[in-house]
C-alpha cells in the first residue's frame, strides 16, 4: 500500500523529515565506507548494474490473486545477495534516483523514504536472515527458507517503522493504533508475496551461481546440493503464520471506535493548531489523540521500535564482521 510507493512531501512533519534524514545520511555514509573496503573498484559497475536490477524488479509485477498484482521492494533480497552494506547502498541509490530523476517521492521526504524503503528492509531483513540461518539446516533449503521469512519480516519492519514515525510526525489526527494496525496488518499480507518471490529468486541464483549469494558464502557446493526444499510445506506454513499475525495486529485498528466519539467532545484538543512551540513542531501529538489506552500504544511502539532498531544495527554490524573476516574478492 503506502510503502510500495514513495511518500510525497509533507506526509510527515518537518521535524521527523529532518531527524530521519540525519539517521539515513549517517547509516548510508557508514555503509559507503564499509563497502569501499569490501568491494574495491569492482563496486562501481557491479553495484550499478545490480541497482538497475533492483530498480527493474520494483517495476516488475507479480500476480497476487486473480488479476491483482504487487511488486517487489527488494531490500532484503539485495542485502542477502550482496551483503547488508552494499545492499543498503544499492537500494538507497534506487530510492534517491527515483526522487531526483523520476520525480517519484518528495525531496523533503527522502529521509524517511530512504530509511523505510532501503535501510530498514536491507539491514533488518539481513539480520533476520542471519539469525534464521543458525536455526535452519545448513543447506540450500535453509538459505531459501531464511530468505523467505527475512523478506517477509523486512516488509513488516518497514511498516512498523513508518507507524512509529507517524507517532512522532503525524500530519493528521489518525491515532497510532489505527495506523499501526492497518499498516502492519496490510503489510503482513503484502509481505507474503515479497517473501515467496525473494526466496524463489535466491533459490534460482543458488541453482546456477551459488557463489553470487553473499548470504550463503559459508556453504560449499556439496552442502548446497544436499537437500531439496520442501517448498510447498514451507509456503503453506509461512502463509498461515503471516495470516495469523496480520489478523492479530489489525485488531489495533478496530478495537476502539468509542475513543473517537469521546475525543470529539474534548474540544480543547482542537485548538492544538494554535500553539507552535518547538515541541509541537518536532513531535506532533496527533498520533496518540483518540487512543483510549495511550500507555499501551506507547509501550507497543517502544518495544517494537527497539526490536527493529536492534535488528537493523545487528544487520549493519554483522555485515562488517563478515566482510572483515573473508576474502573481499569473493563477493
Amino acid at each position: 500500500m503506502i510503502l510500495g510507493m514513495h511518500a510525497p512531501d509533507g506526509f510527515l512533519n518537518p521535524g521527523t523529515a529532518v531527524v530521519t534524514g540525519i539517521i539515513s545520511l549517517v547509516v548510508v555514509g557508514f555503509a559507503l565506507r564499509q563497502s569501499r573496503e569490501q568491494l574495491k573498484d569492482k563496486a562501481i559497475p557491479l553495484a550499478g548494474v545490480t541497482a538497475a536490477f533492483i530498480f527493474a524488479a520494483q517495476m516488475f509485477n507479480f500476480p497476487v490473486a486473480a488479476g491483482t498484482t504487487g511488486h517487489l521492494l527488494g531490500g532484503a533480497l539485495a542485502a542477502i545477495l550482496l551483503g547488508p552494506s552494499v545492499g543498503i547502498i544499492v537500494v538507497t541509490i534506487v530510492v534517491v534516483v527515483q526522487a531526483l530523476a523520476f520525480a517519484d517521492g518528495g525531496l523533503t521526504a527522502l529521509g524517511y523514504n530512504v530509511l523505510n524503503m532501503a535501510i530498514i528492509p536491507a539491514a533488518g531483513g539481513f539480520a533476520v536472515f542471519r539469525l534464521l540461518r543458525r536455526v535452519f539446516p545448513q543447506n540450500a533449503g535453509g538459505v531459501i527458507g531464511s530468505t523467505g521469512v527475512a523478506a517477509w519480516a523486512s516488509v513488516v519492519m518497514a511498516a512498523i517503522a513508518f507507524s512509529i514515525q507517524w507517532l512522532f510526525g503525524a500530519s493528521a489526527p489518525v491515532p497510532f493504533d489505527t495506523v499501526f494496525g492497518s499498516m502492519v496488518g496490510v503489510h503482513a499480507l503484502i509481505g507474503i508475496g515479497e517473501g515467496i518471490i525473494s526466496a524463489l529468486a535466491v533459490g534460482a541464483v543458488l541453482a546456477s551461481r551459488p557463489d553470487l549469494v553473499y548470504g550463503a558464502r559459508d556453504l560449499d557446493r556439496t552442502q548446497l546440493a544436499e537437500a531439496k526444499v520442501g517448498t510447498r510445506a514451507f509456503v503453506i506454513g509461512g502463509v498461515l503464520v503471516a495470516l495469523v499475525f496480520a489478523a492479530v495486529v489489525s485488531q489495533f485498528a478496530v478495537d476502539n471506535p468509542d475513543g473517537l466519539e469521546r475525543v470529539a467532545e474534548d474540544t480543547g484538543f482542537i485548538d492544538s493548531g494554535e500553539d507552535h512551540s518547538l515541541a509541537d513542531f518536532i513531535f506532533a501529538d496527533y498520533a496518540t489523540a483518540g487512543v483510549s489506552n495511550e500507555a499501551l500504544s506507547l509501550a507497543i511502539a517502544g518495544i517494537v521500535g527497539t526490536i527493529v532498531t536492534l535488528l537493523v544495527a545487528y544487520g549493519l554490524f554483522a555485515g562488517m564482521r563478515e566482510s572483515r573476516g573473508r576474502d573481499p574478492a569473493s563477493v
Partner: protein
Amino acid sequence: MGSGHGHALYVHEHSFIHRMAPQAKLLAAIGMVASVAITPREALWAFGIYAVAVAGLFVASRVRLRYLFVRLLAVAPFVLFAFFIPFIASGEKVELGPFNVSVEGLWGAWNILIKATLGASVSILLTSTTEIPDIFRGLAALRIPALFISIATFMIRYLELIIDELGRMRIAMTSRGYDPRWIAQARPIATSAGAMFVRSYERGERVHSAMLSRGFTGEMPIFKQTEPTPAQWAVVSMFVATFVAIATTALVVT
C-alpha cells in the same frame, strides 16, 4: 518510462531553466520544497503564492502544463490516502454533504494534498528541464560522494537494458501460453528474477573487466562541470529567498 535514452521525463525545450547549471537548479528545488514543507497548513495565502510561482516557472520553462498534470497522477495513490483521512481521523466533526467528517482530518488531508502537489510539481519541473547526466553533474558539484554518483550513473545506463530484458522474458513466457494469475504460480516469475540477477551481475563483471582493459584505475573520470553564471545565482537566490520569506512569515503569523 518508455521514452528512449535514459532521460525519461526530460522535455526538450529551450528556456533559461533548461540552460541553468544543474547544481543551481537542485539547490533551488530543495529550497523551494523545504519552504513549502515547513509552511503551516493554515496559511492558505502562502500556498496560493507558491502555486502561482511554480506555475510561473512552468510557463517560463515552456514545458506544457498538460504534461505537469499527467505526471502529477503519479502521486494519485497518496491523494487517495489523504481522501480517507477526514473519515478515519478523530476530533470535532462537521457535516459535509451526507458525510460526518473530522475537522482536524480535513486539515490533515489538505496539508498532505497541497504539499505533495507542490513538491511533486517542483520535482517534475526539475526532471523535465534537466537531463539525468546533468542531475548527476549537479550532485557531484554539491559534493555528493563520487562512489554514490558513479554507481547511480551505471544504474541509469543499464536500467533500460535490464527492463527490456525482463520484458522479453515476460513475452517469452506469455507467448508460450503461460499467464500466471495467482501467487501460487509465482515460481516462474521469481525464477526469471533470479536468472535476471545472475545475468545483471555477470554483465557487471564483464563491464568491469572491459573497463580494466581500457585503463580503469578505480576512479571514475571527473565530470565536466558547468559553473552557474551570476545571473543564474541571482534568479535562484531570489526564488529561494522569496519562498523562505513566505514560509517564515506564515510561521510567525499563524
